[in-house]
């Protein structure tokens, strides 16, 4: 009963929060509300027995995204003169929203309510996949091709983001005035690396994997960015490029190798599948961490300078 109440509450809160995010006039409040909504939604995912991906949602979908947006707000004016942050008055908006929800809800409610989906098929072939965790099996074996393209998506995004803001690479961040955070970071680093390595390894059997590990590492990188003299990695450095691209190259190599012995793309031999997947995941972890880290363009210009430029 309590559980049902909790579910109902969560389910009700999420769209309401979403609505609030978009209604709020202040952009920074919007982002804060968005993060809150994301955390609640991670909770909802956990209630739906998806604890591992709920962590990713919390860390990346909410944390990293929220940080990115917050970071952007520090670059942009809170409210540019020509664009209002508030929704234009659109009477049709509410009607459209209700109609869309109604229509989609109708479809959702007509879905069978105890369908196992592909659970049986996944389990049936789990032994051949080389890993023990079904999600990892889907992600890196059954549908490994999706993941290959997903890596391409990440590369494109980082390439695009760096391409439009090449200057920020040169922006040296303000060193933190607080010596404590720097010290903290130094202490944290080995722990982060350990946790990331563990997550990759555990991904073969249970919740975890390259993406989770990469997110952890990237988190460390972002903290470093904000607290130490360490700048954003630059594309012009060959070390950065190798760190970024070794994973994709290995993955592509692993994907095409079977082609030369008459098998299909990504058709690993059963005996080697586990090893191949582990190595690929390890390399991808580094790449994913690099990409997520590089999404952050460095520090904003110091507040004092900005305000000095403001016409007043």
């Amino acid at each position, binding site marked *: 009963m309590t559980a049902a109440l909790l579910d109902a509450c969560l389910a009700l809160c999420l769209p309401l929060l979403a609505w609030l995010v978009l209604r709020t006039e202040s952009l920074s409040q919007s982002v804060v509300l968005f993060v809150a909504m994301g955390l609640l939604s991670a909770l909802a995912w956990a209630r739906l027995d998806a604890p591992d991906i709920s962590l990713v949602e919390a860390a*990346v979908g909410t944390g990293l995204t929220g940080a*990115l947006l917050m970071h952007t707000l520090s670059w942009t004016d809170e409210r540019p003169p020509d664009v209002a942050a508030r929704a234009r008055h659109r009477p049709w908006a509410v009607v459209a929203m209700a109609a869309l929800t109604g229509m989609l809800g109708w479809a959702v409610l007509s879905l069978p309510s*105890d369908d196992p989906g592909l659970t049986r098929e996944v389990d049936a072939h789990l032994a051949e996949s080389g890993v023990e965790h079904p999600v990892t099996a889907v992600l890196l074996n059954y549908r490994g091709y999706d993941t290959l393209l997903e890596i391409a998506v990440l590369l494109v995004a980082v390439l695009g983001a760096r391409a439009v803001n090449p200057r920020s690479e040169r922006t040296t961040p303000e060193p933190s005035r607080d010596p404590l955070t720097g010290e903290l970071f130094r202490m944290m680093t080995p722990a982060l690396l350990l946790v990331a390595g563990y997550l990759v390894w555990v991904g073969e059997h249970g919740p975890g994997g390259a993406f989770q590990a990469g997110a952890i590492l990237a988190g460390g990188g972002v903290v470093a960015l904000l607290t130490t003299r360490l700048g954003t990695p630059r594309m012009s450095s060959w070390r950065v490029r190798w760190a970024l691209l070794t994973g994709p190259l290995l993955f592509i190599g692993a994907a095409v190798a079977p082609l030369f012995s008459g098998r299909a793309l990504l058709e690993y031999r059963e005996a080697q599948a586990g090893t191949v997947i582990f190595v690929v995941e390890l390399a991808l972890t580094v790449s994913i961490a690099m990409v997520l880290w590089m*999404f952050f363009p460095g520090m904003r210009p110091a507040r004092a300078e900005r305000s000095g430029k403001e016409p007043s």
Partner: protein
Amino acid sequence: MNPWAVYALSGVAMFSVGLVGLFSHEHPVKRILASNIAGSGVLLVLVALARREPTGAPDPVPHALVLTGIVVSVSATALGVALARRIARIDATAKAESTGASDPEAGGGSA
């Protein structure tokens, strides 16, 4: 009503809010937020669909799709905010120039 259906409906509602919000805002950050909300809605629907059989492990296929979805969504956000940031800097430079002040970008760069 089953818990999955409650959450699926919630996801659908989030999606609608996000989608309509996307088209009724002009500020790029708001629109990026809206698209993230809509994305979370879709992913919530997928997560809910995975948990329809009340016993046993949930369907791993939607979970894997969701992971991919998160990556795509954060990539799009990163690209979007990079563009928005650049636009803001160009505007700031233009504004500074029009008021006779020096280039704030150059100042930021040499700090």
